[in-house]
């Protein structure tokens, strides 16, 4: 440990810490472009210059290790002047068409100009022209003129994605960021280069020009794309609903969590939210016997419960199969368990449908299991492997032989896990098939009743990731049409069946869950927000440590 003094604040830090990191710990912000905590240090942008006593010149805070007794000043006249000079230098060839640039509003050049520079341009020379609107990959658009050559993206491709696509070519004011000849920026993590680009050089082809960033609101959530459960922020457009064809969710951005995804997320997750605003969304409870007919929630619940009771009274409890989904939150699954298993006394409950084609995976963030809550469902014991009922495959076989007479299917497109004719044969042999989910699919097309469930951005709840870390999703936008969170749907069915589900908020469900389920016992609800809580540690962390912004 070494002691340093930064702007009069004395702090103790481990040896090897750089000045910029030490300042961060002391709560002092030093501007930076090239420095990124997740990447190697190069010290090329020079904006982080600070004054260190007994050193002849200003030093870059990002590359200078803090040593014992060091005294650092970050806002002396000399430092401020140097910062302004660096800003002026960076802006020599940077185009000043901020209104057109898609980065405007979240651009570090804009921010630091307002905070540290505010100079008038002294340049009479023409700005150097470089290539604009270059599609360097399936997701990324490059504008070389706007690039300040901080090399963050180059380092990302070298160190994190390890795909080495980008390089900086030529020298002086002709230096230019480009993909290596014959390659394009096409890796599983290419979207992260857009996040770390401090200026408008790398922009998102999917997001570009669809809206403006200052129209967006931000809600913390968890990526539902695979069992890693990367922490994300959902950026949604609540005010200008006519933008981007009316899609409410504009983009997903990774959120820092040192234990899960650090600063990154994969492209599959980043661009995998389109189903939220797709035309395939189910908007109202629908009866599809004969003619398709929309109905109210009350009607739907009472009709489904009447038919279900009929099946149970004639053929017994063994004749009903329930297929839950690992796409559902812990809360959804807990209420489902309470309703189907404890309330109705059904035996055949499962959630696992192994996909016909195994999902892609790597040794970084992408997991083969494309469901966010498989671990949660296992811990809640709602699978056939945890209980004694039939697996989904056995259920379909039994359904074909008419040993099962009713199937309640949540979210799954069974065609992903079984041959189409197997599914069709099984479902058409049923007296009652209920499908509940956010989007239509080949399974919902065969159901007698289709119930609209809220998508992951429309509900509050928690997912348990592959490492058994419980993390929260929050409601970002209101549910589309008549859709409701899955546990609310089960609640309204339970009400018809006179089964007590005394919960009004997702929090109530979670409290009941922690009280009832061994694996989750003692989890503080307030601690879930932010970084989540790992169950593997054996016990929940003390509350003070778990509440992180």
């Amino acid at each position, binding site marked *: 440990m070494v002691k340093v003094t930064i702007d009069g604040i004395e702090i103790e830090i481990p040896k090897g810490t750089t000045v910029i990191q030490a300042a961060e710990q002391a709560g002092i912000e030093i501007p930076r472009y090239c420095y990124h905590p997740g990447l190697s240090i190069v010290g090329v942008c020079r904006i982080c210059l600070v004054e260190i006593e007994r050193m002849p010149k200003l030093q870059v805070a990002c590359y200078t290790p803090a040593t014992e007794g060091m005294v650092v000043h970050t806002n002396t006249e000399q430092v401020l002047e140097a910062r302004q000079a660096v800003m002026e230098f960076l802006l020599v060839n940077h185009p000043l068409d901020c209104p057109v640039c898609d980065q405007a509003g979240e651009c570090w050049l804009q921010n630091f100009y307002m905070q540290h520079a505010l100079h008038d341009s002294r340049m009479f020379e023409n700005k150097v022209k470089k290539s604009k609107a270059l599609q360097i990959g399936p997701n990324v658009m490059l504008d070389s003129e706007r690039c300040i050559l901080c090399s963050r993206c180059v380092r990302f491709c070298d160190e994190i994605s390890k795909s080495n696509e980008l390089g900086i070519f030529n020298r002086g004011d002709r230096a230019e960021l480009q993909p290596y000849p014959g390659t394009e920026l096409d890796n599983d993590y290419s979207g992260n280069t857009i996040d770390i680009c401090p200026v408008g050089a790398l922009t998102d082809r999917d997001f570009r*020009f669809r809206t403006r960033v200052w129209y967006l609101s931000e809600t913390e959530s968890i990526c539902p794309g695979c069992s890693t459960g990367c922490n994300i922020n959902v950026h949604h457009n609540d005010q*200008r609903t006519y933008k981007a064809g009316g899609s409410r969710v504009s983009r997903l951005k990774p959120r820092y969590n040192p234990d899960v995804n650090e600063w990154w997320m994969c492209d599959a997750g980043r661009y995998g939210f389109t189903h939220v605003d797709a035309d395939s969304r189910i908007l109202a409870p629908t009866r599809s016997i004969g003619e398709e007919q929309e109905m109210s929630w009350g009607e739907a619940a009472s009709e489904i419960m009447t038919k279900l009771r009929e099946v149970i009274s004639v053929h017994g409890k063994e004749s009903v199969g329930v297929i839950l989904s690992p796409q559902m939150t812990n809360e959804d699954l807990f209420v489902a368990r309470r309703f189907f298993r404890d309330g109705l006394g059904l035996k055949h409950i499962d959630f696992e449908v192994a996909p016909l084609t195994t999902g892609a995976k790597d040794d970084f963030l992408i997991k083969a299991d494309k469901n966010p809550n498989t671990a949660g469902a296992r811990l809640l014991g709602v699978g056939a492997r945890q209980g004694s009922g039939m697996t989904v495959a056995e259920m379909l076989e039994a359904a074909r032989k008419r040993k099962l007479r009713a199937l309640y299917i949540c979210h799954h497109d069974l065609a992903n896990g079984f041959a189409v004719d197997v599914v069709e044969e099984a479902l058409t042999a049923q007296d009652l098939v209920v499908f509940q989910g956010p989007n239509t699919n080949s399974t919902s097309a065969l159901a007698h009743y289709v119930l609209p469930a809220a998508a992951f951005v429309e509900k509050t709840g928690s997912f348990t990731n592959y490492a058994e870390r419980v993390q929260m999703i929050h409601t970002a936008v209101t549910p589309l049409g008549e859709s409701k969170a899955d546990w609310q749907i089960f609640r309204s069915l339970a009400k018809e069946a006179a089964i007590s589900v005394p919960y009004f908020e997702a929090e109530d469900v979670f409290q009941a869950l922690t009280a009832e389920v061994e694996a989750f016992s003692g989890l503080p609800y307030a601690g879930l927000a932010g970084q989540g809580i790992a169950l593997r540690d054996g016990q929940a962390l003390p509350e003070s440590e778990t509440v992180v912004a």
Partner: protein
Amino acid sequence: MINVHDKHKPLTFIEKTYLPAIVSGVLLTSRHFFVNLTRHILRAFGVKLKNMAAVTIQYPEFLRPLFPRLRTMHRLTRREDGTPRCVACMMCETVCPAKCIYIIADEKLENPQIEKMPRSFDIDLGLCVFCGYCVEACPEDAIRMDTGILEISNYTRNGMILDLETMLSLEPMSSRYVQYDRGGEVVSADYIDERHRSDA
């Protein structure tokens, strides 16, 4: 602390009779009547006065001249090749206090120097408050409120929405109709004729 004053003081007995208010109203109206009468008579005898008498303009046959800085219906300016100057930066949309501007942007791939252009640009004149902030916010001088069109009415709410093509086709009001005339003189007759012709 916020101090709230009761602006509604109770009326005194005299005020409650309303007679003083009636008398002062009658006096005001009479003053205007006699001042105008005197000025018109003097003018009839050829006496030029600095202040003119009140004149009734026979609208819509006759129109008052428009002041050059008057904010009238919006138009979008064009580049030399006829494409809109607008780069769909949405500054006007952002600054608009009535939230009556709706822009959907498009990528201008054929010219990466311009990069961005509007796919649609709608202004709902039914909501517009004619503050002129959009003109001021525009970094490209792409939107102006100088068409001189004041008569904006429609039978439907949707009819009040100006679209991109309409706004691009509008021209600035001709300088002939823009005159700073304190005299309250009516505009020349050929302007009126022209308007009638274009209506027909």
